[in-house]
């Protein structure tokens, strides 16, 4: 924790978060390589958010035979005047799971166990890639421009709260 | 003075959950000022930062510019609505 959540009630299915995520990490817009996504049914408009729950899940870390998924400390500063600021304050300290690309052998164990389908083989580097909370300034939250309420927001649990003190 | 109502944008409600703001004023201009005092977000729905009115203000379905503008007199039960000069559609 903390981790990004997409509210399926508030999300309008504009995919701005995926665009911003890919541009930030790939230096170009390439949403097929985004690290989160909103699954939209075009007929019914039903929406299901897919994000990495970081240490609140850690299935990929457990499954990795090479200890390539590492827990790192992180300080998250949400860009923009968003509800997460009122809820979680300006700055949130916590842990994030990141891929150590030296150790990753692209064996795919984590790809199969991820419950939200957000860790995959990178098409160019052929190692796993996943959400790393943009080194503390999540672009998905910044560009979630749902005019009224934040659809893509930062979720913080009790463990993190103790860490803040 | 007349009791008139300003319709809030869809999805916006007053503190007590009503979809319109009740004003007690003689003219449309006064009623809008009261509504803005109660619902500050309404200011930028009607006026630019420099105070110029850019949106269309309707009194019982008629644009107030077809009458006396902000000085148009109000009567009890009058209904007001604000619509930006939208395009397309």
């Amino acid at each position, binding site marked *: 924790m903390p981790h990004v959540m997409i509210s399926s009630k508030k999300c*309008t299915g504009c995919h701005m978060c995926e665009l911003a995520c890919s541009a930030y990490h790939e230096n170009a817009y390439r949403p097929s390589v985004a690290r989160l996504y909103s699954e939209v049914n075009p007929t019914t408009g039903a929406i299901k958010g897919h994000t990495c729950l970081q240490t609140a899940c850690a299935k990929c870390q457990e499954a990795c035979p090479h200890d390539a998924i590492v827990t790192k400390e992180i300080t998250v500063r949400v860009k923009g005047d968003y509800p997460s600021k009122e809820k979680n304050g300006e700055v949130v300290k916590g842990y994030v799971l990141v891929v150590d690309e030296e150790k990753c052998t692209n064996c795919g164990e984590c790809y199969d166990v991820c419950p939200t389908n957000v860790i995959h083989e990178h098409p160019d580097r052929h190692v796993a890639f996943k959400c790393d909370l943009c080194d503390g300034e999540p672009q998905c939250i910044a560009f979630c421009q749902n005019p009224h309420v934040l659809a893509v927001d930062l979720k913080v649990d009790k463990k993190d709260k103790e860490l803040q003190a | 003075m007349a009791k008139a109502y300003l319709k809030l944008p869809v999805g916006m409600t007053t503190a007590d959950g009503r979809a319109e703001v009740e004003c007690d004023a003689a003219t449309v201009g006064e009623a809008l000022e009261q509504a803005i005092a109660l619902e500050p977000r309404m200011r930028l729905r009607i006026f630019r930062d420099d105070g110029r009115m*850019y949106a*269309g203000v309707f009194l019982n379905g008629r644009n107030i510019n077809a009458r006396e503008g902000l000085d148009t007199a109000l009567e009890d039960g009058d209904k007001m609505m604000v619509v930006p000069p939208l395009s397309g*559609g």
Partner: protein
Amino acid sequence: MDFYKGRVLRIDLSAGTSAVEPLNMEWAQKYVGGKGLLLRYMWEEIAPKSDPWAPENPVILMTGPFAGTNVSTASRLVVGCKSPQTGILNDSYVGGSFAPEMKFAGYDAIIIKGESPQPVVVTIKDDVVSFVPAEPKYWGLSTSEIEEALRRDFDPNAKTLSIGPAGEKQILWACLSTDQYHKAGRGGHGALWGRKNLKAIAIRGTGSVTVGDDAKAFLDDLYRIHSEYVLTEDNLWANEEGTPVLAQIMSDAGVMPTRNWSSGTFDGVEGINSDSFVKIRTKNRACYQCAIGCRQFHEAGGVAGEGPEYETIALCGGNCGIGDIEALMKFNAECDELGLDTISTGSVVGLAMDLTEKGVKDFGLRFGEVEGYLKAPALLARGEGIGADLALGARALATKYGHPELAMEVKNMELPGYDPRGAFGMSIGYATSDRGGCHMRAYPIADEIVGGTLPPDTLEGKAQKVVWGNPAEGMIGENFSAVKFTGIWCDFWAITPEQVAQLFKHLWKREVAEDDVWKVGERVWNLGRLYNLREDVEPDDIPKKLYAEDGAHTTGASAGRSIGTETFKNALQEFYQIRGWDENGVPSEAKLAELGVDVRL
């Protein structure tokens, strides 16, 4: 190359082959993208005065340079052709996510020529283009069915552009559909797909759109633009209420076409106005890469889905005397699934009701009667029963039964939801629109009716407004609509020329003045005028009763008002003078040179 992919995909349906060629960057410098680049390609690709139905005449899909980035509302696609309905240029705009997917697959434009020997679906996955027989599985499907089928059979993430049964039957206003509810509606490119035996294109792209060597710098600037210009209070109406808000306003102002344009005020509007739709609203959605999200979903009488928008409420509601929201929802859903443009459909059904009520010809349709009304779209799309007559279009249908004056169209394209007798400026807007009866090129309504900053019952100064508008305050004129259609931005973001300059600065990698932005718009508009003159466009005019002294309404808020024939003709001449055109609307050599238009008649 940044923002552009620099690649055009050519599809030859006759041979079942495809090829990729470089995008003409010289043209892209002058005409940027979208409408501008589309018209420049049409000038070359379509032989002068040729038959719009000819196999070698293309339908062109053109993206804007900002499609596939975080620039809000720029995910729109423009579909272009020489229109089989009007015989002049047609540029039809649609949202959804098809244009961004085209960019990610590696294409700025797709040029579709030829006629397939048998019905076909074209699938594109990055560089792999395949021609898949459309029979028996796909031909005949509704627009939602074909999309689901291609997601199942081709790629779950595929974006689809398709025709419904109406396109297969080559109905003049069959539209192209994408993401279920988005329609490139008007002008007949759906009919051309039907003639070309092309049921759908499904596309999937996994590539990228570059925006300079530092995407993070672009993201930071774009974040500023969003906070300052997109998510501002004045832009949120589309997200909160949407275009149904216009229904009550237009009817109250005597501008809503009612019972085949016999009044401007619809006595049943309370049943289909915004308050009625808000009561049955289920959810709100957005097009791809759009922070505003204007798509309103509703559910009533067992029908659930997106829309209707104001134009459908006016032409399929007021114009047909239908104030029953469930019937309107059903009619709209039928048109969506059949792939029919609701403006032209509502116009011909209203006309058929008028002819029936006047005892000229019994179509079994009457104003306000739901039963026959709900059967009309299917009959029209399949050309069965009264459908054959309806498919003629307003001008031919009214003429066939001896009442040409009852057809409300300009250059054979049925008029949308604004009666100029209630808003005089629209008379010049309709007459000079470059594709026929269309409201999207100039929208005096914003100032005359909604903003109320201009009197609606005079043509004083209106020609100037139709040409230039005042986009920073509200009304979009023709020249700035040409800019928005070139970038491609949607109308529901009230972007200003100064803000466009800030985005063009990223595109051209130099400082951009507002005047540069205006130049692009005027250049694109003049290119369109030359194209239409080359295709022998009929003189600019609108149905007489919309300006003649004896054409005034007798009921409704705009009763008794008429522009006057003399006043209308003079305003038209004033329009030409402002544009630097002669009295027949032919641009002067000086104007073309000043604007850098690189073609001549």
